[in-house]
């Protein structure tokens, strides 16, 4: 009898131990918390404003920004990227739309820098890459987006001729399949056939969709649609891209298209697939902390730029659900992921108080760092993502 009782107790004890080991193991190894925080619109706006302050403080009088900076050594690491310059100009015009002080002036100065590099190309105009025999198209595409944003913010049409010229150049880069050549050859005044960029295609798509929105009736919509169809159906296979491109610019393009027409089923399906690419990255990024344990089980935290692109992607999908009544049922979950990314960005940004611990606070406050280094696009993508999260968190924005 005694032996039987002991045996039953032992069995119960073993069952309890199994439960405890199981729950602890699953929590530690598989179900790590996604530390998104509960960020508010006010906090997001404040973070965006601090980023604008960084961009104003770190812009030279000719419009060029500090590109790459080591905070620990207080050292300018040099380098520059024209496409990112144009992207940052877009982010700042968006900040101007949100009423953030200094943003419009900094963006206009960024546009002055780009204007000095305009050349005739492909039946229109393009942003030149001095010294390169083949000019990348990214800066031209993102400047269209930026100037389009400026037009939407200010209502001024002073850049319309330039916008049309840039649009014609981008159209000349589209191949019959809808693929977009990443470079324009200066010598032949033609696209470089068979050369494709992971992101320039989506940037051109967004740019041409935006042109259709602000300058309708000039054929830009048809060009955007050709690229959009290629992105949705063919790009990853045709360009042998695996895993499929995490293309936040394509997500921008889909949302932009929804401003002037409802999306097709093909486009809806593509939006869902993009969400399926952004989602796991957001959830994984949210599990990463600076702790010893998560470094070993989840890796180090991603770049500010990486986090920002995820925010841009999911907010674009959310915007799509607001504009297109027939869009996939992504609103709630896209809002959840957008809020999560914003929470991570706010938490990881160096605020003005933290910046005081560094040698040169003005070059640190408002920026995102990895291994003590920040790069211009860390601020570009995060700023855009933060601003696009504002209406998600506060419908009154």
């Amino acid at each position, binding site marked *: 009898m005694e032996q*039987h009782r002991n045996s039953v107790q032992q*069995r119960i004890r*073993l069952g309890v131990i*199994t439960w405890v080991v199981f729950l602890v193991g*699953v929590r530690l190894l598989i179900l790590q918390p996604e*530390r998104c925080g509960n960020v508010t619109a006010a906090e997001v706006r404040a973070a965006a404003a601090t980023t604008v302050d960084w961009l104003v403080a770190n812009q030279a009088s000719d419009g060029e920004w500090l590109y790459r900076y080591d905070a620990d050594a207080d050292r300018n690491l040099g380098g520059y990227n024209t496409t990112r310059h144009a992207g940052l100009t877009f982010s700042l015009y968006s900040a101007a739309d949100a009423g953030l002080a200094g943003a419009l002036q900094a963006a206009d100065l960024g546009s002055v820098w780009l204007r000095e590099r305009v050349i005739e190309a492909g039946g229109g105009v393009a942003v030149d890459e001095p010294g390169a025999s083949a000019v990348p198209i990214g800066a031209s595409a993102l400047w269209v987006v930026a100037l389009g944003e400026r037009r939407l913010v200010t209502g001024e049409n002073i850049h319309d001729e330039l916008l049309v010229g840039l649009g014609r150049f981008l159209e000349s880069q589209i191949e019959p399949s809808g693929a977009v050549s990443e470079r324009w050859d200066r010598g032949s005044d033609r696209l470089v056939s068979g050369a494709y960029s992971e992101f320039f295609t989506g940037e051109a798509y967004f740019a041409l969709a935006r042109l259709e929105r602000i300058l309708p009736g000039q054929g830009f919509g048809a060009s955007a649609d050709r690229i959009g169809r290629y992105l949705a159906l063919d790009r990853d296979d045709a360009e042998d891209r695996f895993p499929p491109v995490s293309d936040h610019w394509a997500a921008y393009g889909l949302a932009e298209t929804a401003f002037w027409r409802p999306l097709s089923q093909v486009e809806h399906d593509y939006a869902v697939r993009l*969400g399926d690419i952004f*989602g*796991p990255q957001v959830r994984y990024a949210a599990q990463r902390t600076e702790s010893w344990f998560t470094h070993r089980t989840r890796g180090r935290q991603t770049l500010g730029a990486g986090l920002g692109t995820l925010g841009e992607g999911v907010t674009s999908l959310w915007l799509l659900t607001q504009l297109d009544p027939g869009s996939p049922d992504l609103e709630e*979950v896209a809002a959840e992921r957008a809020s999560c990314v914003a929470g991570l960005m706010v938490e990881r940004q160096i605020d003005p108080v933290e910046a005081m611990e560094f040698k040169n606070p003005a070059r640190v406050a408002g920026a995102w760092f990895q291994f003590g280094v920040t790069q211009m696009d860390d601020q570009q993508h995060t700023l855009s993502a933060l601003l696009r999260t504002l209406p998600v968190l506060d419908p009154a924005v």
Partner: protein
Amino acid sequence: MSVLLAVLLLVTAHNPPRRRAELTNRPQVILAGGALTLAVLVILGGAGDSILDALDISAPTLRVAVGLVLAARGLLDLARRLPVPGDGLDGMKGAIVPVFFPVLLRPELALAAVSVAVDGGLGAMTFGAAVALGLVPAVPRRYCRVLSVVASTLLVALAVDRIIDGVFAL
């Protein structure tokens, strides 16, 4: 998540033939233990969203975790012999030990039930769990081995589906 998938997932996660092999109790006792287990699973399922919120876990991440755990469970069961009955309380008390605990109320079943409740609704989870638990006394002892292999094989396939569904989700 469809009701059919909910039922299949919970039945295979529970693996009634293996549970039957562990129990020598009378069918009424097993059903009573099953009812207790179902009650706990319904409570857990009903609290599923709150549990996820409290632990900062998203539904797709839980889906991945369930897939990983169930895949491991399925492969382990395929590699192991059927369990043998252990000691427990006599008579109707046996519905508590060993039927309810530790045989029927298992952590992998609880985890799967929470996930099914979050993804497919409490109704689907309750129905699926009731089927899974109700099948235990109905499994003929002589078919436990072969049916267990079938359930474990299907479980691995469903677990892979859960992982894919969880990874590729916004």
